[in-house]
């Protein structure tokens, strides 16, 4: 029994094909799992953008009384995990007079009395990201109450024009007056100085103009009605989108979806990251990866050059090599703790003491920020770059180095002019792997600079334009927070899937760029070798 082996049953050739088949089977299993995960993310993610019809729902609550609401119904039935019998639960998001901006409800099938698409009801999105499901009834225009909805588009244009005027006055007139008043404060000009009074007068003139425009804006109102017949009204200025999703043709739905994708990519998050867009997170992710790449590449390449070209072939070098490889296996949260303790508190604290002493105790660099996050990520991905670059350096043919030395090049010149160009595809491989690793990392970032919501982008029009000390938003952190820590409804859950899809796309695009670059370098430097 103990001597059993499949050699007895299989010929030599069969053994080989057996091993190959087993390998292929495992590889295809992995592939299937991967495709399933990607498929789930893609499906649930794109679901976020596709408009859902508003339904007319009648249900009975626990007390037995019936309610009539406009609602959106969840992606399907959710099987209960608590009872053995297949019990279907319905995820309902509805608006009524008590909860005009929406509320959630979980219903069992028997509680639903009537469910039908409501063609007359609209999915109304407000500028703060909240949604109302209701039937638009009429418009209030200045001096003309209860107009028909036909004038809606025109009224919205008027509202936008008014809002534009207000913004213009704020940026072109009010802000400069503020600045000049602040200058007077710095120069300690007396409170009753003529310059100050003149500015104050000017300020109140513009202020009154703004108030006047705002009161005009307030006269544009949209009246809506809930399924129960109760009315409600909103400022037309608050309205962002109004879609009769029940009436839309497939093309119309595609248009709404395209609009939603655009909003998702370019807008700021609203309602605590459960609505609106993810632009700051997308920007923060890409910026962090770029800074990390810029930091990690030179350090990694220089370390690899030292190890392959300069380091003596002894135990010490072997130990360094093993340490570098092992660094890749350190849990990423450890890097986060290291980054927080060393970079943020120690290095950042020292910088604050040296250069920003006048602002202490408020920290400037001694607080988590995008630069420290990028630096921590650079340390995290350093081993990957070192190992791949070493591989590339070792592939440079000895005779090319000899040729360079024979023409009078020093070691440094040989490395710069001959070895590095030929090793560049290997370096790019390292960078690709580093990007892939860094883009998906979340744990260390939460310690060193990524936050749930950052009021400002790390890049703006204010000198020095790139604010490396600012905290930033990151797609991975947004997903982690949104999916596990926030009160989620079905819509924000699918928004998290959409963010996940976006993160995958970002990694994909960055990798594709690096692969194209590597291919071009290969064609340039490795053709014929």
């Amino acid at each position, binding site marked *: 029994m103990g001597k059993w082996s499949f050699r007895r049953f299989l010929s030599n050739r069969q053994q080989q094909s057996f091993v190959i088949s087993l390998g292929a089977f495992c590889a295809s299993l992995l592939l299937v799992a991967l495709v399933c995960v990607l498929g789930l993310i893609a499906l649930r993610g794109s679901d976020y953008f596709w408009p859902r019809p508003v339904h007319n729902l009648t249900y009975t609550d626990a007390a037995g009384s019936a309610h009539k609401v406009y609602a959106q119904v969840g992606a399907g039935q959710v099987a209960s995990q608590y009872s053995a019998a297949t019990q279907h639960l319905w995820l309902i998001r509805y608006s009524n007079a008590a909860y005009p901006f929406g509320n959630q409800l979980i219903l069992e099938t028997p509680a639903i009395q009537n469910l039908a698409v409501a063609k007359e009801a609209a999915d109304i999105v407000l500028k703060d990201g909240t949604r109302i499901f209701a039937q638009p009834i009429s418009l209030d225009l200045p001096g003309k109450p209860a107009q028909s909805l036909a004038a809606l588009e025109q009224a919205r244009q008027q509202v936008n024009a008014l809002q534009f005027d207000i913004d213009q006055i704020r940026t072109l007139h009010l802000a400069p007056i503020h600045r000049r008043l602040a200058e007077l404060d710095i120069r300690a000009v007396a409170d009753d100085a003529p310059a100050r009074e003149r500015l104050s007068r000017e300020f109140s003139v513009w202020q009154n103009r703004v108030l006047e425009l705002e009161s005009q804006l307030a006269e544009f109102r949209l009246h809506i009605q809930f399924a129960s017949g109760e009315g409600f009204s909103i400022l037309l200025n608050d309205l962002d989108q109004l879609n009769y999703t029940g009436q839309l043709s497939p093309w119309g739905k595609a248009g709404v979806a395209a609009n939603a994708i655009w909003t998702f990519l370019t807008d700021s998050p609203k309602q605590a990251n459960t609505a609106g867009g993810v632009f700051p997170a997308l920007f923060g992710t890409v910026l962090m990866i770029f800074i990390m790449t810029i930091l990690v590449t030179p350090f990694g390449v220089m370390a690899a050059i030292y190890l392959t070209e300069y380091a003596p072939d002894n135990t010490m070098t072997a130990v360094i090599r093993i340490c570098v490889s092992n660094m890749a296996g350190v849990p990423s949260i450890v890097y986060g703790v290291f980054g927080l303790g060393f970079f943020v508190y120690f290095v950042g604290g020292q910088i604050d003491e040296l250069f920003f002493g006048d602002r202490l105790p408020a920290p400037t660099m001694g607080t988590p920020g995008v630069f420290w996050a990028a630096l921590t990520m650079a340390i995290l991905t350093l081993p990957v770059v070192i190992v791949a670059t070493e591989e590339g350096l070792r592939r440079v*043919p000895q005779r090319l180095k*000899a*040729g360079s030395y*024979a*023409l*009078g090049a020093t070691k440094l*010149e040989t490395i710069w002019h001959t070895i590095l*160009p030929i090793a560049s595809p290997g370096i790019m491989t390292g960078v690709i792997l580093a990007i892939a690793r860094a883009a998906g990392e979340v744990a260390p970032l939460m310690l060193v600079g990524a936050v749930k919501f950052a009021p400002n982008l790390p890049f703006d029009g204010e000198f020095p334009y790139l604010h490396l000390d600012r905290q930033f938003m990151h797609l991975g952190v947004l997903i982690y927070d949104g999916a596990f820590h926030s009160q989620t409804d079905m819509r924000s859950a699918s928004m998290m899937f959409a963010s996940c899809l976006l993160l995958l796309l970002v990694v994909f695009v960055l990798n594709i760029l690096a692969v194209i670059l590597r291919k071009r370098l290969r064609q340039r430097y*490795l053709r*014929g070798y």
Partner: protein
Amino acid sequence: MLKLFERERLNLEGLSPEQTAIEVRDLNLRLGQKHVLHNINMRIPKHRITALIGQSGCGKSSLIACFNRMNDLILNSQTSGEIIIEGRNINHKKENLSLLRSQVGMVFQRPNPFPMSIYDNVCYGLRLQGIKQRRQLDDAVERALHEAALWEEVKDRLFDSAMILSGGQQQRLVIARALALNPAILLLDEPTSALDPLTTLFIEELMGELKKRCTIVIVTHNMQQAARVSDYTAFLHQGELIEFSDSDTLFTMPDKKQTEDYITGRYG
């Protein structure tokens, strides 16, 4: 009449310093534990082609590499003795290797053009010396390619990659790359062993032209080639210089038994 076709013969023992390109005195080379060259003494005449022959592993490539200190690149290499080129001992530890290697060019067994354009390949050494003016580089490239008999073939595609050239063209490009630096001495380490017979002939003709402007030392396995192209031939055996005389004498009436055995093919 016959004398016209005979090569002029210098007395190798009594070469004056002006006639000597490389003077080797008591050269010993150790690579790690291995004693590769034993007490080599020789004077290589200027503007002549000197061939080094001998079996594989006899140390001829190591000897040629001593002339521009390429052995320094090998770990644990130890050289003692003197090599005098242009009046100075290049074996001195303060020798400027960049300068030495620009004066003593070297071409290897397999063509090793850099993966850049033909133009950049020829300019490589000049740019290292800090020459940046376009006109100076253009002139040097054209001159070097002419000297390497490659100009006509590549003049329309100077900025194409050097990797698309054929093996023979690549080897001539490598020679042009060395010539661009105006070397006094050109070391050729089996330059034709990776090439076909026709290309080999072409390179041999080229050597005949080149000896007008620089001294050539060539390592070869091919005794016909040594007899064809060289003025002088040195035979090495197991790290020792057995015989060094003009090629006609060495190949027709060698002094030593070992030389005769080798050139008649009894061993090696």
